[in-house]
């Protein structure tokens, strides 16, 4: 693939055709490709390659399996409000099997899957959504009489690549929460290897799309961490890119929902935000295409750590995150100290009262002492009973 500038693609035949096919302006399409390339941190020129690949290459066949899940991943992909995205998902890829989106049903659907697998043997992309029950020979999830375990193994055998989408397929997700009655396992665990995965509940559709387009463009999946997560999306802690990070560093925390700090947008760490131990790009790419602050922490809810095994659906929402580096103290010294108040009216009145009582008491005492003790006869103990004030 020759390196070229994205501006040169403007009158590319494929792009003109794409414009007609999708009803998307070329400008908008090229912007999307640039954004995806930037999201993945790809070098300059990659955006042009991606645009060309999407515009001209044969769309890869995609088989999308659903197991133990809520279909939230698919829903979030479809509900993405970016004007051209849902069309692109369906156009960039040839979605040959997807239970939610299929018009076909029953044996017809299963036949379509087998046909696609045969036609694109070794080239199709297998997407797994949902955890796979393994307990009791996998009987807790069956499709067309076939257990999820068997179906996954069958489809994975001839796939060009397997991608797990969502936390369930990535690491077990919510179905694997203790006591895990169905033995829900991730796709990687069932296949016995680390597979690229896009965890999240639901994951950000752009992370998935970027990964697919990377595969389409370069023929391989993007660089991943040891858990198989693309580094461009899961390379950093949420905490590191969080818009509330400055509040954390300054020691300003919301202490309970609805308190002053919460209303002012302070750090949610003390409400149990798992951002400090969760790797994801949520604060950078946000959710739902509605703009500023449209992600859990942005709306005032602590991160639940949905992308992290052992945190999402495992650790209580209110439990404090384990910080990877610095743990904040219970309180910080204030920068500006109160310099003290002058005398209050009460304190002044009290002081005056004490002084008055002391003076009065002393005067009375002195008067009586003088009366009863003449210097000549100091042994005359004639004293009047009398209350006196203490000084």
């Amino acid at each position, binding site marked *: 693939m020759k390196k070229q500038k994205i501006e040169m693609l403007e009158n590319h035949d494929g792009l003109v055709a794409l414009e007609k096919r999708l009803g998307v302006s070329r400008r908008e399409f090229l912007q999307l490709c640039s954004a995806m390339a930037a999201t993945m941190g790809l070098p300059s020129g990659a955006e042009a390659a991606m645009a060309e690949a999407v515009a001209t290459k044969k769309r890869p066949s995609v088989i999308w399996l659903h197991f133990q899940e809520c279909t939230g991943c698919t829903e979030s992909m479809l509900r993405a409000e970016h004007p051209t995205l849902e069309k692109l998902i369906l156009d960039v890829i040839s979605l040959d099997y997807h239970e939610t989106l299929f018009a076909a049903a029953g044996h017809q659907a299963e036949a379509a899957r087998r046909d696609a697998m045969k036609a694109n043997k070794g080239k199709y992309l297998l997407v797994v959504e949902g955890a796979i029950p393994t307990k009791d020979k996998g009987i807790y999830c069956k499709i067309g009489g076939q257990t999820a375990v068997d179906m996954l193994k069958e489809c994975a055998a001839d796939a060009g690549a397997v991608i797990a989408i969502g936390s369930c397929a990535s690491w077990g997700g919510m179905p694997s929460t203790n006591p895990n009655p169905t033995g829900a396992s991730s796709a990687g665990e069932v296949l016995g290897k680390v597979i690229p995965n896009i965890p999240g509940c639901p994951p950000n559709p752009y992370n998935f799309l970027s990964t697919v387009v990377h595969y389409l463009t370069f023929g391989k999946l993007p660089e991943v961490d040891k858990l198989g997560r693309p580094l461009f999306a899961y390379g950093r802690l949420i905490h590191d890119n969080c818009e509330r990070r400055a509040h954390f560093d300054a020691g300003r925390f919301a202490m309970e929902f609805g308190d002053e700090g919460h209303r002012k947008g302070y750090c949610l760490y003390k409400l149990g935000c798992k951002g400090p131990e969760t790797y994801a790009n949520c604060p950078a790419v946000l959710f739902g295409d509605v703009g500023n602050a449209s992600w859990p922490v942005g709306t005032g809810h602590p991160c639940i750590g949905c992308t992290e095994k052992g945190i999402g659906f495992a650790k209580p929402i209110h439990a404090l995150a384990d910080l990877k580096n610095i743990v904040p103290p219970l309180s910080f010294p204030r920068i500006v*100290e*109160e*310099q*003290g*108040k*002058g*005398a*209050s009216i*009460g*304190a*002044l009145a*009290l*002081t005056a009262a*004490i002084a008055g009582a002391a003076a009065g008491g*002393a005067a009375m*005492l*002195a*008067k*009586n*002492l*003088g009366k*009863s*003790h003449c*210097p000549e006869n*100091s*042994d*005359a*103990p004639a*004293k009047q*009973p*009398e*209350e*006196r004030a*203490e*000084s």
Partner: protein
Amino acid sequence: MSNAHHPAPAPLGGKLVTPATVILAALAAIAFIILGIRFVFGLGSVTNINDGYTWGIWVVYDVMIGSAFACGGYTMAMLVYIFNKGEYHPMVRPALLASLFGYTLAGASVIFDLGRYWNTWHMFWPGYAQVNSVMFEVAVCITAYIVVMWIEFSPAFLEKFGLKDLKKKLNKVLFLIIALGVLLPSMHQSSLGSLLVVFGYQVHPLWQTIMLPLLYLMTAVTIGFAIVIFEACLSSSGFKRPLEMHILTKLSRLMTWVLAAYLAVRLIDLAVRGALGYMFEASVEAFWFWVEMALFIAPLVLLAKPADRMKPAKLFIAALCLLLAGFMLRINSYLVGLETGPGWHYFPSVPEIMVSIGMISLEILGYIVLVRYLPILPKEETI
């Protein structure tokens, strides 16, 4: 402690529950409620102290002034046992009792004022203590003196509970304890002044001098005389007992001499440092300096003639003036004359004042209860 020339001390007896003791107990109870709040919610919840004025009246009054007012035992012990003036012996026990309360409560007040009071034990623990600190000297010295005073005072308990053997054994070593009882206050009463020397330029020149330890020690001694006279007048009035005028007159003479010496040192020091001019400035500090000095000079004027020293009223007023003078010297040097930077203010809050009042009430209440219960005041009929 026994002395054949004087009537033996005896319990006063009488009712313990009177309007006066009930009021005193109520005031002490209020103080304890406030202290409860302080220990749960912190110093800031009840006091007005801040980073500029870290010591409020709980230190300046309860500790600095409280311990100075408790110097009666020190002065009397010095007089009787060091200068061998046996005629003052009947004054020792009552003075010691007042001192005992004063110091014990001063020691307790330090803990009220410690922000991290749970670390109090650090100052007595070799690995933690900062042995080069003036505060360390004051803390250890005051603590030691409180223990020494309780031992010094213990014959009163031993007599009451009939532990004659123990008292006999104690009497053999009591001279050591008494020696300590004179040495220790000399050390820490001067160190309370040294604390201020450490404050440096933050203390107004009218008070900041390298002579502060001496000034604090001399005023502590004169206050010791004054408080004995003051307490004698109070207890004679309160318990309707005759005044021991023959002793008080002599005491007042000693008091005026020490006071005159103090004033000489004070004024010479001001002159040598070239600080005399500050007292003529139109400032708050100068005003309170004049109040302080007037109170120091007043007893000299009141008791100038030997005949005046025979009049109980004059003696009482003179002693009161001297107590107030010592009070003002400490308030002035620690609070009025202290300037730690622009913008800082301090005036005690109502709860702070109520705690100090409660401590004083507790002191008087304890004194009343113990003189009625233990052999402290000399038997009346023999005078």
